[in-house]
């Protein structure tokens, strides 16, 4: 009886999914989120979860990690870890707000393991070689812990370290010139897409 109910529910869910179609703009259902979190947790070996950060949390290491984050991670995670970027908002699943308990509640070793090995079927790539002594990744773990206390000044400083395409640099310069009063406000008429 239970099997029949499960099969009927699965078929009904399948019909709904097929009719609705697939879009990365959707938010994962509660069921998907729960299964994904559990699977992610299971994917990190217990030995990795118990690892302690061997890198001291010094201002120098934190600054280095901040620059590293701005250069490599912020394009999806945003400088402040909110995940509110064009890529982060439109991934499936969405890039999480790393300042919140779901991330901050993870063990240091768990965060390190995810940075090193990535997360399958998500946008998170494996950034390391998978060993347990990648100093840069351990420094990033310190920075992730720092995210909830990130100041607007730190965030502003990080913006200057975010990678930019030549078009973005040019656009940024145009905007700055406009704010500095170096271009007339009533001459432009057509939107430019890129």
């Amino acid at each position, binding site marked *: 009886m239970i099997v029949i109910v499960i099969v009927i529910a699965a078929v009904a869910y399948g019909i709904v999914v097929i009719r609705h179609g697939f879009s990365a703009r959707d938010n994962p259902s509660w069921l998907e989120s729960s299964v994904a979190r559990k699977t992610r947790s299971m994917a990190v070996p217990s030995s990795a979860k118990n690892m302690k950060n061997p890198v001291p949390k010094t201002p120098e290491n934190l600054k280095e990690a901040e620059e590293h984050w*701005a250069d490599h991670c912020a394009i999806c995670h945003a400088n402040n870890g909110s995940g509110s970027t064009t890529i982060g908002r439109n991934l499936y699943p969405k890039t999480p707000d790393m300042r919140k308990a779901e991330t901050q509640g993870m063990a240091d070793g768990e965060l390190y393991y995810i940075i090193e090995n990535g997360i399958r079927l998500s946008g998170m790539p494996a950034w390391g070689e998978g060993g347990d002594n990648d100093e840069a990744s351990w420094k990033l773990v310190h920075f992730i812990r720092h995210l909830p206390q990130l100041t607007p000044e730190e965030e502003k400083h990080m913006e200057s370290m975010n990678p930019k395409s030549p078009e973005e640099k040019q656009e940024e310069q145009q905007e700055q010139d406009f704010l500095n009063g170096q271009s007339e406000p009533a001459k432009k008429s057509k939107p*430019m897409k890129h």
Partner: protein
Amino acid sequence: MKRQFAILIVIGFFASLALAHGNEQHLMGVVKSISKSSITVQTTNNQIQEVTITDKTTFENAGAPSRMDDLKVGDRVVIHAVKSGDKLVAHTVRFGARKAASVHSR
């Protein structure tokens, strides 16, 4: 002919005022009015555009974090916003002159 083509390119280049990034738009213009939940801007092509402000909108004055209260009618602004239904919702509002930020390279 080459000269005309070059002029066309230059005009096309400078014709940009609302720079789109997927769903994101960049507006440049002058503040015409301010309410608690929106800013109305006369854009650089003389369009009047209302932009919604939320509690997530950040303000930046001369490169430093700021507040909506510091913005005044007549200020030049650069607004980065996303389209939400028929509204344009700002996530960043920049105003105030400053030197261009240096670009970090690795």
